[in-house]
């Protein structure tokens, strides 16, 4: 070992590395390899779950950027996803546009709506902002409900979306979807990580922690707040659009307030203010109902409808459990373990910047 400490950083490039430690690079390489080989070893059911996770990851990254990094508590996630889904459905089914046009268009539609929903954020904070976004969520859903009633074959049947196709090749298999979603979700995650590390991400964190100080430091707070809403809504719309193609039918009933809360749960569980946390949280929450179902099936006694209730309650238990006992989410557990081993044999004592803000 050279005489220089591995923690001594001597160049700007060194400080900017995303994966500074060798073991981190190994871990990422292993994960990438595993993901690429996954379809070879798993059946369609498992791949289907993974695909749901991928879509959720995209949405979770979006809301984490808005709520976790920028501190804007938003309950409008579901409405943004609905906008994306409906735009895709209209463009693909009604106008027959290919997915290469429909998906970006949906993102733009989401971004536009996100911008509008973000305007109240310039006035409110905290709970009042959440309630304002809630009101706008209902407004958007109301409009879409009426649209669906008028346009769809019947009021609740929704709009069918043809499978995305390129040339003559249509995307219908779980395996194909797996790679397609991977190709989209991975850049989104990398985009999120880089955005968080950039001056934009730092501005967001400054706004989250104390926006008055951020403003006096010269950060254009309205601009960054609106940027957060726009990007977050665009990502949510992307998730909604992909979901529309994936499930091939779009109904407004699936975009409920509960869905927005589910996404909040993802970032609570995963870790607010951490893009990798979003990934962890998205996977955890997406798989949670299935895991609960498996566990309740494996139990020796018959549960009947109670099992359904437990499934529903599971997400509430997850939210409360993490908020009470591990408020920084799964990513914090990972960090604690990682720094324990990094600093070993020295004890690592985390300095937490105060309980109350």
């Amino acid at each position, binding site marked *: 070992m050279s005489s220089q400490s591995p923690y001594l950083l001597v160049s700007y490039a060194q400080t900017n590395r995303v994966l500074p430690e060798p073991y981190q690079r190994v871990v990422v390489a292993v994960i990438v390899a595993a993901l690429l080989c996954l379809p070879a070893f798993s059946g369609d059911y498992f791949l289907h779950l993974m695909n749901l996770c991928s879509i959720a990851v995209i949405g979770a990254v979006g809301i984490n950027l808005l709520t976790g990094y920028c501190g804007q508590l938003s309950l409008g996630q579901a409405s943004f996803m609905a906008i994306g889904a409906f735009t895709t459905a209209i463009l693909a089914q009604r106008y027959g546009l290919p997915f290469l046009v429909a998906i970006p268009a949906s993102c733009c539609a989401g971004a536009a709506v996100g911008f509008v929903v973000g305007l109240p954020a310039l006035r409110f904070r905290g709970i009042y902002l959440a309630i304002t976004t809630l009101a706008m969520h209902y407004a958007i859903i109301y409009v879409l409900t009426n649209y669906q009633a008028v346009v769809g074959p019947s009021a609740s049947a929704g709009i069918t979306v043809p499978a995305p196709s390129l040339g003559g090749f249509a995307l219908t298999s779980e395996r194909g979807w797996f790679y397609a979603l991977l190709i989209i979700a991975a850049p989104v995650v990398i985009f999120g990580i880089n955005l968080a590390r950039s001056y934009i991400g730092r501005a967001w964190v400054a706004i989250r922690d104390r926006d008055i100080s951020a403003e006096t430091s010269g950060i254009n707070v309205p601009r960054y707040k609106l940027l957060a809403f726009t990007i977050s809504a665009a990502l949510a719309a992307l998730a909604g659009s992909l979901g529309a193609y994936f499930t091939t039918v779009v109904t407004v009933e699936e975009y409920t307030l509960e869905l927005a809360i589910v996404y909040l749960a993802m970032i609570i569980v995963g870790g607010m203010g951490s893009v990798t946390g979003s990934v962890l949280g998205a996977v955890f929450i997406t798989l949670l109902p299935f895991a609960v179902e498996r566990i309740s099936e494996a139990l020796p006694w018959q549960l009947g409808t109670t099992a359904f209730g437990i499934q529903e309650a599971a997400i509430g238990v997850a939210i409360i459990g993490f908020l009470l006992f591990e408020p920084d989410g799964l990513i914090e557990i990972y960090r604690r373990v990682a720094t324990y081993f990094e600093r070993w044999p020295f004890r690592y004592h985390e*300095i*937490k910047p*105060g*309980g*109350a803000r």
Partner: protein
Amino acid sequence: MTGVAAPLLDVRQLEVVYHDVATAVQGISIEVAPGSIVAMIGTNGAGKTTTLRAVSGFLPAEDVAVTDGVISFGGQSLRGLLPHQISRLGVVLVPEREKLFQTLTVAENLDFNLTRKRQPIRDAVFEYFPRLAERQKQIAGYLSGGEKQMLAIGMALVCEPRLLLVDELSLGLAPIVTSEIMTILQSINRNLGLAMLIVEQNAAAALRIASFGYVLENGRVVFKGEAEKLLMHQDMREFYLGDSKAGSYRNIRQYTRKRRWWG
């Protein structure tokens, strides 16, 4: 020291740490004899307010912890007790900020803890602070600074304290108001025999009514003694009481003036 009798408040080797990294108070030992006024003086960041808060359990964030030391009041340890328990024992703090309920009226503030037994003390508050009597129905938030301080002390008195902790009462007050309130505190001490621990940046005002004083710097007690002796002490006068032995500033700056080859 202050007397042969056992001290009412006995703080020994107190250590308070912020966020597990910054030690605000490093081994402070303070005694308050029954019925006496003790002053804690020092500049900002000396650890005076932290000590008071540690004694009264008023440490707001869970990140501030008393890591060492003994805090004993009348023989009972105060460490680990909740603020309302400490207050019920008779240790009542008049905080520096947020010292009263701004949205309640003056009367409601004083009645906050009123019981039949405490009615006489509550009436006595208006004798000590006649200005409050005129403003009973007024919302406390609209009082002047001096009146707010008076109300805060009055509220503390209604709680039947055995030891009154006053945190920087002179902050934001005109000197004449400060000395008025200090005089009233002195008369309360004489009439009720109420022990007081006063934290002050205005060293002169505090030492004038106190019988004993501690000087804090950087979390330690650097000087202590009877108040008259402190008032007379040369170093004290220079550093805290604004009196310098040198005739002009040119001589004082000897310590800090940069050495140049020409003198």
